[in-house]
């Protein structure tokens, strides 16, 4: 009896994962067809890439918040590390790799590496803490990253790369180019981020997270989340597993940041402030902690919503807030949940 239930549970889990993939792929195909047949408005087409980036952010934060059970309020910080390192890489490679998709892929990988490194460095002090303390310290680190990038100058000339902090003392040779200009961020970015690239990144992120969650380490994450003391007592290395989830999450956020930044011609560190971190957390909470598909859908809905409310002009943000509150209440209401689960075709099989 117990065995059978376990097997069934596993099947339900697998079904949930395949359903997530299927919905993401179907949504991609529909959007792509609509976009190429000009059926999609410019407004929607312009939002495809940022939505993909936000979806990856939601998946990435869900790993920390939903699976590991730790609240991170500085996730936009990793996004900005990825955005700046990725864009700088893409600009440096401009002369060497003319084929944009390859350049984008390399930039996103570099962004992931830089963000993972930032995640590791920040993780060392942060992961010693738990609960509210951890949340507050991640918030602080998010702001620190923003301040550093606001005061960071990076230039390139025939002698190589030059860095400086606070003010521009790079003293570039003639013909040199200042890439990151402190508070002015990066200007003149080639827009090489594409919707297919965003889709591929989202699929990769989902595969990584699902595989991680259903591996031995993933079980350890959840054990730590559910009962830290019990997990420690059976010999799990808490810090190691926490670090693993945190670094992986930071890496995904980094590549999402690179994708996001390369969809605009300009990027500033102030974009990735506390508000952005909270926005991503809202995606995760609204979608359901630990629920990847929910987070993805929430990211799409909450990005499109303010644009669809444009006709209400000044009352737009007020309406947005009201809709958000209603959605939060509705998704947590037991009766509505019950109603929704009745619509789920797999429900009966699970109970059987």
């Amino acid at each position, binding site marked *: 009896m117990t065995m059978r239930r376990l097997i069934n549970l596993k099947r339900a889990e697998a079904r949930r994962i395949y359903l997530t993939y299927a919905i993401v792929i179907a949504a991609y195909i529909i959007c792509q067809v609509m976009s190429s047949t000009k059926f999609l408005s410019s407004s929607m087409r312009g939002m495809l890439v940022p939505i993909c980036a936000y979806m990856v952010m939601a998946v990435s934060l869900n790993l920390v918040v939903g699976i590991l059970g730790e609240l991170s309020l500085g996730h936009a910080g990793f996004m900005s590390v990825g955005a700046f390192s990725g864009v700088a890489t893409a600009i440096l490679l401009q002369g060497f790799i003319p084929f944009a998709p390859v350049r984008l892929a390399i930039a996103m990988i570099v962004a992931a590496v830089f963000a993972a490194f930032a995640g590791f460095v920040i993780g060392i002090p942060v992961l010693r803490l738990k609960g509210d303390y951890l949340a507050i310290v991640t918030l602080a680190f998010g702001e620190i990253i923003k301040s550093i990038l606001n005061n960071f100058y990076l230039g390139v000339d025939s002698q190589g790369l030059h860095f400086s902090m606070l003010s521009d003392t790079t003293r570039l040779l003639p013909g040199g180019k200042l890439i990151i200009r402190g508070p*002015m961020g990066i*200007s003149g970015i080639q827009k090489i981020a594409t919707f297919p690239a965003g889709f591929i990144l989202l699929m990769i992120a989902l595969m990584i997270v699902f595989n991680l969650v259903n591996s031995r380490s993933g079980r350890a994450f959840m054990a730590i989340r559910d009962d830290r003391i019990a997990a420690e007592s059976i010999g799990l290395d808490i810090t190691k597993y926490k670090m693993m989830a945190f670094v992986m999450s930071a890496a995904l956020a980094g590549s999402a940041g690179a994708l996001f930044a390369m969809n605009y011609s*300009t990027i500033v*560190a102030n*974009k990735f402030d506390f508000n952005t971190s909270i926005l991503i957390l809202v995606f995760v909470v609204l979608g359901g902690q630990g629920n990847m598909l929910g987070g993805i859908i929430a990211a799409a809905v909450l990005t499109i919503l303010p644009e669809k409310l*444009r006709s209400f002009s000044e009352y737009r943000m007020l309406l947005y807030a009201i809709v958000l509150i209603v959605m939060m209440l509705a998704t947590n209401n037991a009766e509505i949940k019950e109603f929704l689960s009745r619509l789920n075709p797999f429900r009966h099989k699970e109970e059987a």
Partner: protein
Amino acid sequence: MKKVLVCSLLVLAMSASAFGAAFKIGGTGPLTGGAAIYGIAAMRGAQIAAEEINALGGDVQFDLRYEDDTHDAEKAVNAYNALKDWGMQVSLGSVTSKPCEATAAENFADRIFALTPSASSAAVTEGKDNVFQMCFVDPNQGTASAQYIGEKGYAKKVAVIWKNDDVYSKGVRDTFVESAGKFGLEIVSETAFADGNDTDFSVQLTDAKDKGAELVFLPMYYQPASLILAQAQAMGYAPKWFGIDGMDGILTMEGFDKSLAEGVMLLTPFNADAKDEKTVKFVTEYQKRFGEIPNQFAADGYDCVYAYCQALTQAKATPDMDAETLCPKMIEQFTTMTFNGLTGENVKWSKNGEVTKDPKGMVIKNGAYVGLD
């Protein structure tokens, strides 16, 4: 709130009145949030101009629409795309610099001509043949300020307080510091602040005071400037103050004690106290509708629409032309024509979209802007 209501009603009324053949002209700007004063002013200025032109009933009629971008590049691109869906033929770019850099790239890619009222960073027009500015480019403001202070002999020892995470502030500060020596100014104190620590300026002010600065240059927007003025008064420091066009708007800020700004000088291309017919007419109309004195952004918005009117008339453009057809015609007109507006006479544009006109020095006296010369 009432103002907002009146304002949205006006927009509605306007789009309703502009039926039939009119040029669809659209812009983005911060209509909500911290920078809203600029976006709303530019939008109102443009509205007045569009209505005046429509009332004349000439060949060129305008259907104007502004979308909110909350001073954010991502939202600005969204707003731009919404305008594109609406069928925008010529664009007013964005009101603030960084969002405009993002929308200007879209303008360039889509071949929709843009004339921004007030986005002043150099990167807005850089490398784009169809993006033009109505305001000075940031670096010019720094040089012009240094020149003005130096040549008029207002001070020798100067302090600079700037915002080091702001494009606009940094752009002006860089060229000011660079050219200060050339005009006999000595920079004795240079201090910065950033978002998040922009409420307490005692460190910066004490530094300026201790080093004997006679004049403090404030290349920033008006909110931090208002705090600096208040805190300087509290600590008994009374140097000369010199601001740039971002300081414009300080007098209409809610809850600001106007006496603090007494004697503040600023360099701005528009002077609401000027006695010429055009300015008087605009200021009276603006005051009648919105109950406040228009700032430079409003005048820039107003001028943009009139410049479009002139260019479209001279190019013999008709509203049935699409954006791509209008674009080369507008580039041709703007690089050759001379425009007389509120923000300057004999305004000309260079091939790279930058404007040439004379800046006007102003000083705040009895709670109003008065020309310095």
